């Protein structure tokens, strides 16, 4: 625009949304940039979920003091109902988790696609919350959570395998006794 005049309110309202919507648009754009920044610096490099989440936490570092206000604004509803912008609260860690899984080529299928992303989203959300209060220990906290998650999912699949084995053994016993055909 010519002669350095500030854009009038009406132009900003139409470009970015009226009132608080404009600030929300800016925050959402920043969050989207954060998702893009999770990618590898080198095209050919292979990433893990851990690397991707670390990069995303790093993205927060320059603006940590402003984040609580930004998230509070996103959670503020635009209309009267619903009383809280739940979609905005839930969407952010979900997008981060999805991007991390894509970057790490985690190609789960079926219900594990959802459970994996839900777990990573929850881990990331907890790590980010931790980062807001204690930035120095955030990455260690994230690593701890990811390890616990791996152990838990290994344990869960071990339980499943063992349970399967027990179940088939009982079936075999029942057949040998003539209780089942």
């Amino acid at each position, binding site marked *: *625009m010519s002669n350095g005049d500030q854009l009038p309110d009406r132009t900003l309202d*139409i470009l970015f949304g009226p009132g608080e919507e404009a600030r929300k648009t800016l925050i959402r754009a920043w969050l989207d940039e954060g998702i893009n920044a999770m990618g590898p610096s080198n095209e050919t490099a292979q990433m893990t979920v851990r690397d991707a989440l670390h990069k995303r936490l790093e993205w927060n570092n320059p603006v940590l003091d402003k984040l609580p206000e930004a998230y509070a604004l996103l959670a503020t509803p635009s209309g009267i109902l619903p009383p809280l912008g739940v979609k905005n609260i839930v969407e952010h860690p979900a997008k981060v988790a999805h991007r991390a899984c894509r970057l790490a080529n985690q190609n789960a299928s079926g219900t594990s696609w959802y459970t994996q992303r839900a777990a990573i989203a929850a881990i990331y959300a907890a790590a980010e919350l931790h980062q807001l209060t204690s930035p120095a220990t955030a990455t260690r906290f994230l690593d701890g959570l990811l390890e616990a998650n791996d152990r838990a999912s290994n344990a869960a699949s071990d339980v499943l395998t063992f349970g399967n084995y027990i179940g088939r053994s009982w079936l075999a016993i029942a057949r040998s006794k003539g209780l089942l055909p």
Partner: protein
Amino acid sequence: MVKEVFSSVASKYDVMNDAMSMGVHRLWKDEFVSLLKPGSTRVGKVTRCIDVAGGTGDIALRILDYAREKKADRDLVVDLVDINPEMLKEGQKRFRKTMYHGTPQVAFHVGNAQELGQERFPDNTYDIYTIAFGIRNCTDIPAVLREAHRVLKPGGVFACLEFSKVTQPALASMYESYSFSVIPLLGTIMAGDRASYQYLVESIRRFPSQEDFSRMISDAGFEVGEPEDGGAWRNLWGGISAIHTGVKVA
């Protein structure tokens, strides 16, 4: 055809609008102008507005009143353009009852929205371009949008208030039967002219949907919001009418 329809309806246009929308068109126009926030609190800054197919001056008057009442702005100017001299005469008659008559704040021009003319309406002149319930009567809508883009300054705002597609299916069928039976009947009773009002109703039906129209605005070079209600357009009364906006960025 368009000229004849509007010559016929000119003198009773506002009364018929009241009957057709049960007075609601006034609310829509109020909201339309409030959205634009015309005027500036900076003394001496001249906000230039052009209201096309402005006819009877509904929007122009609201713009001037908004600037005066909300921003204490008496420098804003509105160029009111219409293809139909009779509609303009109605506008001038209405303005004679207001404080803006005889001031440089309002000027009336006969002109074609599709080709305003470089001489009278040079490039990069206006801060706000409005067209309310007029664009559906233009045969070449992209030409209107191109002209709007031409005459607006960078940072200038394009705003269009128009009847649109009702999105709710139940409301849509009720509205359709209302439009095609009640409105031409009212035209016959109140204005003695069924054909013109039948034309008006059909022109509403032919007009593109909200999304298609916002795409046309974007194709003309405007920056528009997200293609959803609340973004590139704002539905009024379930989509009976809609306000489309765009910004000229360069």
